[in-house]
């Protein structure tokens, strides 16, 4: 196991949704630990509960039962304002559909987050980190999908979070753009030491992680550790 201290401890996590007239059991008793600085891929088909798990880790949602701790923080008992503070101070998010604010430029989208962070890097530096130093003043509509996702990554890492959570970051991208985005994420993980969780249904991406956690039907189906991580550039799908 990892020699670094555990940052997340999840025990008996369950989550039930009511979607219209349908009840969905998204998570059914998940136990899991994540360690400082590691790169984890949560792998599973759609509906396996991986997004739900990520949302709970990120403080975007609360479990129906069970507990989840981040260091000293017990996220499962946090109220809305405590979760807000937790997200603001510790977590960076990358979404499948980027969720950029269309009315703000790349730089301003990043500034949106750095303005409320404690020790942010400059938006320009964050954008340079993802290779968009030249496109600071472009609006989302003027950027390609890969560029938009890189802005989203820059926005997520600019506040220098301890945790970077990525929900299908390559889901809407073609292969070479996707590889490019993964390179940026891996680079952030390596250079900043940010605990990084990427969820995907694409098994190939597991090859670049320290650990791959397989989810199926709301439960952990298996965990594998990579002795030799591949570089994103070696991936093909």
């Amino acid at each position, binding site marked *: 196991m990892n020699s670094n201290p555990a940052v997340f401890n999840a025990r008996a996590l369950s989550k039930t949704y*009511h979607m219209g007239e349908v009840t969905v059991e998204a998570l059914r008793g998940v136990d899991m630990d994540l360690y400082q600085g590691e790169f984890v891929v949560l792998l599973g088909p759609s509906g396996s509960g991986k997004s739900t798990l990520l949302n709970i880790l990120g403080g975007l949602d609360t479990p129906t039962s069970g507990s989840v701790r981040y260091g000293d923080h017990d996220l499962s008992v946090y109220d809305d304002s405590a979760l807000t503070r937790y*997200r603001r101070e510790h977590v960076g998010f990358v979404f499948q559909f980027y969720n950029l604010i269309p009315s703000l430029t790349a730089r301003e989208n990043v500034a949106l987050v750095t303005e*409320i962070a404690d020790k942010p890097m400059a938006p320009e530096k964050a954008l340079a980190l993802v290779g968009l130093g030249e496109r600071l003043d472009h609006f989302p509509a003027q950027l390609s999908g890969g560029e938009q996702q890189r802005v989203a990554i820059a926005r997520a890492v600019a506040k220098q979070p301890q945790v970077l959570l990525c929900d299908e970051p390559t889901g809407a991208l073609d292969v070479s753009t996707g590889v490019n985005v993964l390179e940026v994420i891996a680079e952030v993980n390596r250079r900043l030491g940010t605990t990084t969780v990427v969820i995907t249904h694409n098994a190939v991406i597991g090859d670049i992680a320290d650990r791959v956690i397989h989810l199926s039907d709301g439960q952990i189906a298996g965990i594998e550790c990579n002795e030799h991580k591949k570089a994103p550039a070696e991936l093909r799908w």
Partner: protein
Amino acid sequence: MTALNQKMWRDLWHMRAQALAIALVIMCGVAVYMMFISTLDSLHLTRATYYENNRFADVFASLKRAPEGLRQRIAAIPGVESAETRVVANINLDIIDFPEPATGLLVSVPDDGTQHLNALYLRQGRFVDPGRDDEVIISEAFAEAHGFKPGDTLFAIINGHRRALTIVGSALSPEYIHQLRPGGMFPDYKRFAVFWMSRNALGQAYDMDGAFNNVVLRLLSGTNVSDVIDRLDDLLEPYGGYGAIERADQRSNRFLAEEFLQLQNLANIFPVIFLGIAAFMLNVVIGRMVTLQREQVAALKAFGYDNRAVVWHFLKLVLIIVFFGVVSGIILGVYLGNKLAAIYTLFFRLPYLAFVIEPGVIIEATFISALAATLGTVFAVRRAAVLKPAEAMRPEPPTIYRKTILEHIGLQRFFSQPTRMILRHIERRPVKSLLTVFGIALACGLVMTGRFQPDTVSYMIDVQYNIAHREDISITFNEPTAKKAQYELQGLHGVEHVEVFRAVPVRLRFQHRSYRTGITGVEPGGDIQRLLDADLQPIRLPASGVVLTDYLGTLLGVRPGDRITVEILEGDMAIREVTVAGLVKEYLGVSAYMELGALNRLLHEGPTISGAYLAVDSKMQTALYGTLKKMPQVAGIAVREQEIRNYNKTMRETMLFYSYVGSVFSIIIAFGIIYNNARITLTERGRELASLRVLGMTRAEISYILLGELGILTLLAMPLGIIIGEWLCMMIVINAQTDLFRVPVILELDTYAFAVTIVLVSAIASGLLVRRRLDELDLIAVLKTKE
């Protein structure tokens, strides 16, 4: 500027058309509010200033004749600050090139030039020279109506003698702000004048040297007016006093008060309706707008912005729109208020206008608008913000569509798929659909309120002058005259029919309530003067008892069969009792009627009349004027056609101003509501419609789905709008009731048609504007993004 503020300004720019529509609606609400309140405040201030500066009297009394020495005793009544005796007389005028009858009131002014009470506000020329007996100052309105200038001459029948009078100036007086011919309902500046003449000259002309027939008092503040009036009546009784009145009963002041009251009542209801509707729609529109930003709210929250920051972000955006609406509303409202107050200044012949805007009014208007916007925003943002960000970022749970009621009852074979989509979409969100219908309905009702008043005016004219009072000319005598004068009138060339009347000023009392008015004794079964029942059918006057205007019945709280006390304010000032025989429908004035003989008996007098109503041959009318003018006992002549014209003018200048402003504003509001609705629906359903385009539907087909919904909601809104409109008109009418007018709710077909047309045109125009946007839907974006 922070990135969040940057976003706000860009969002605002992006939704500028909608923002403009919302701001316009607020502007209209605030402007109407400001207009009414500032006009009212200004008129009150102007009147108060004018009354104070020109020392308007507190008590007024006329009498037959008393020696000047009595003034000392009047001035010695406790509480009297100053007393001024005067000579006042009714005169007939003879104006060159103006054959119609004109009358005037001649009022004396002190010879020493110091006007203690009811001081004139000289507009042109100079004061009368006390040494001259042919100089007059004339009322400004009359001067303007005839184009008289200082130096001009006119003729008047003074005490039976035709005299030439030189005009030396024109003036206004607080005593005659409302210049009404005795018995007239509306000012007639061409045919009625007030003249001021030196006391000395007037005294000699009327045999009032060292005597007076009118006295006015100004009281110390805190004095009990009725005590003074009682003492004054006691002093004047031996000299033929007609009963002193307080300022509240003074004719001009009372009419002015009535007008102010009516304006006040309208000011109570109109702005409430406008601002209320604006606030309601602001609330709905902003709520829906913010709901659409659900995903952005979630994203902001995911980054760590707390609820307060998110709410404040949207609230700022909304408040900026409100700010522009309120500021432009205040500016427009002040402008319109100034205009309206200026119309009133002219209308009432006030010497100046003291225009005020109370800061409180601005604060109120701003507060109401901001509150409505804030509530709408906070509720909507909270709905989005209380969701866990993860939940808010997920597409909304697939909405539960069901078959509609229409489909359940087996009508589905009549509907195409797109029609089913429209119907299910409406039924899916019943509250939202209802709010939309209600918003459009309010706009429709509002349009009706701006339109119904002209119809009402024509209806009132019709009832008053074509059904009830059908005389061509009415004349009043100088003093009560023997009934046989009727035969002299009947013998005049051109007179076709004569009906006589007796009019006597009275105070009617029932229990603790009283009302000062007049009883008119008319011939039973008259064909010219007719009394109408609630269905506007002529009724026959009962042989005994008094018949009251229905409104007066309500004021006194009496029903047919009650006995009321009549204080006769003439002659021996007797107090009698009479039974209320019935109530009649009248929209104008407050009157009491008796059978002529019954009134003569009540007054303990023989067959006596005060005047007559004449039906005349229109070809002989001008010649008849000449004859009547030469009859010394005729004090006043009123021509019906002229009354109608005056009435129209009065109504047009005042009431119709609101109609105009109201119509324009309600049209803007209707458009604002409907356009915003269409735009929001487009945003809500844009993705779905674009997907349908991807699937191969034509532009026309998706337009049908979107605009079909708008169309159905608009059509549903119309019947409701008409009901709301009728209700709003009723509220306005109930609030506009005064002693002077009881406006009926008369809604002609064209009012309904106009309101419906405005709503339809707004809907079609909004539809076309939105349709243009439908053509620009980004189909690729739909394929690329989620849901």
